[in-house]
């Protein structure tokens, strides 16, 4: 009995040593890959950052409204954001490669999945950026046009337009990365439909006189335009 226990312990020890002997190089390789990956990712981050600074990337982002959105959300400036994204994409790639070297069955295929996910993530980011740009453009165009057309509450109208475009872009981005796709699409459809229905009912019930004023302004009776108090030219 004692002999059996001793053999089992010895065998376990041998197995442990064998496993360690087999795993240790892999662990070292994994650690090396992760460490080298971190260094490369860090270097890339700084290269990208300096490149973007040199290209005055932040000025461009400020011009199209992305800078303001980042500021509102308490996020770092655009060049820092891009360099951070590059850092994490590269380092996570190395990290998963390193984990793959360990040969754990449960973790197999993660690198492949990550490689498939990265393009979708990049497309989603592009959709978001374009959404922000379009939303800001639509907001500004609506605000200026509403002010010049004497539409009541121009900031509310333009803010609603921007929110709708941003929601649309956000839903498209989430759909692109397939994150809770069904929930996102259903929630978007319900929210969008509810907002539109609510606006229509609110405008129809409470805004009849406003609608009349707006329509009178947009479609004046013939000769009305000549009733200005003075000529501007």
């Amino acid at each position: 009995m004692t002999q059996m226990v001793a053999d089992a312990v010895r065998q376990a020890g041998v197995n442990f040593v064998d496993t360690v002997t087999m795993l240790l190089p892999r662990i070292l390789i994994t650690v090396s890959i992760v460490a080298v990956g971190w260094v490369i990712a860090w270097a890339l981050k700084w290269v990208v950052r300096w490149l973007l600074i040199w290209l005055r990337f932040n000025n461009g982002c400020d011009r199209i409204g992305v800078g303001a959105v980042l500021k509102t959300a308490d996020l770092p400036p655009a060049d820092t954001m891009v360099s951070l994204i590059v850092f994490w994409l590269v380092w996570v790639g190395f990290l998963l490669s390193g984990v793959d070297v360990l040969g754990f069955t449960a973790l197999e295929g993660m690198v492949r999945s990550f490689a498939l996910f990265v393009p979708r993530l990049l497309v989603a980011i592009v959709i978001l950026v374009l959404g922000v740009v379009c939303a800001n453009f639509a907001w500004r165009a609506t605000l200026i046009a509403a002010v010049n057309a004497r539409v009541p509450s121009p900031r509310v109208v333009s803010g609603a337009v921007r929110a709708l475009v941003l929601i649309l872009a956000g839903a498209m981005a989430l759909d692109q990365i397939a994150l809770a796709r069904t929930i996102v699409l259903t929630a978007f459809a319900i929210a969008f439909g509810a907002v539109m229905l609510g606006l229509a009912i609110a405008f129809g019930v409470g805004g009849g006189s406003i609608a009349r004023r707006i329509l009178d302004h947009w479609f004046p009776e013939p000769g009305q335009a000549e009733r200005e108090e003075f000529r501007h030219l």
Partner: protein
Amino acid sequence: MADESLLSDDLLRQLVAVGHVDILVGIPTLNNATTVVDVVRAAQAGIGGYFPRARSVIFNADSGSDDGTPDLVRDATTDDTGTVTASRPLRTTQRITTPYHGLPGKGSALRMIFAVADLLSADAIVVLDPDVTSLTPEWIPALVRPVRDTAADVVAPLYPRAAADGPLVTQLVRPLVRAAYGWRLQEPLMGEFGCSRRFAGHCLERPAWGSGAIPDGVDLWMTGEALAHGFRPAQTALGPRLLAHARTRPGLPDVFQQVMDAVYACLEMHASYWLTRGPAEPVPCTGTLPGAVELGPRPDVTGMAQAFARDVVALHPVLQKVLSDATLAGVTAAATAPGPLVYPDELWAATVFEFLLAYHRAVMTREHVAQTLLPLYLGRTASFLQQHGSSGPAVVQDALESLGQAFELAKPQAAAQWKKA
């Protein structure tokens, strides 16, 4: 030289039959049946009465009227007007009317008029607005004589204006052009004008015609071309300028956009000239304007002032992208201050120049830049009319002179920033 491809064979035949002329009166038209006859008669009476020995032609470039305008031009005579009394003409004034092809608009019509004038070697060219109902025969010698007698190249009109008449010109275009181009020209948007063949030839040779770089406001482009390329400007006093009311005109936002596009485009085009131009010089003037102007009822601008206060608050985030902190603070203070609206000259000059820089730097689409300026322009107009709505011409003139000086003072800083951008 004129681009003869602009002129059809039939038109060329007519022009060859006419031969050399001393005076060409050009009338660009588009559905002006209600007013064009009087304009043609006045032009004919002006030529016959004041230049009886001159060889002359009235040339109508029509943009495709469907109300019979070309026929009316062709058939118009002075026989039943009784306006020709000074003397009988010794020569017949030829009349030619032709449709033009290409881009619709006054620019294409003027190009054709210049091409015809070049081909006929016209010494003096007069362009009239067919919509004007107050045109008299005296406008013709007023626009021709500076070209023939004083060798002026471009003769801009002078109209008597009350405070509320044409604030887009008096509050914005005039002082801006004065400060930028360095000439005290009263009417840079020349509704009517006279010019020499030399200037017409210069305009014809500009590559901008073909490239589409000439803005819709071709009148302002011609003013800029004349001033920036050393042509001799002159001004001549005409009577009041009244326009027909019958036709549907574009709304203020469209007019404002068009004018601002033209202003901005011209300043971009002539930047090398105006950035180095010094203080404004006076432009020689012939004739005198009437001392009194019919004021009409004082316009009620209370609504405009209230709208200005609302608009500045609503547009604040957009204005932040265009205006400096100091100017924005000034505009906000003017909008929110209790009592009558006061938008000072210096603040208005700074506002306009900062919008000009925003346009140059393309901080947002150029259409948005112009449209954002419109509520501020209305605020400035309301402020000016609250102060001078019922003032006499001398007081209004002093106020406008003061505005022009404020623009001149603001220009050097704007020019420096333009160069940095």
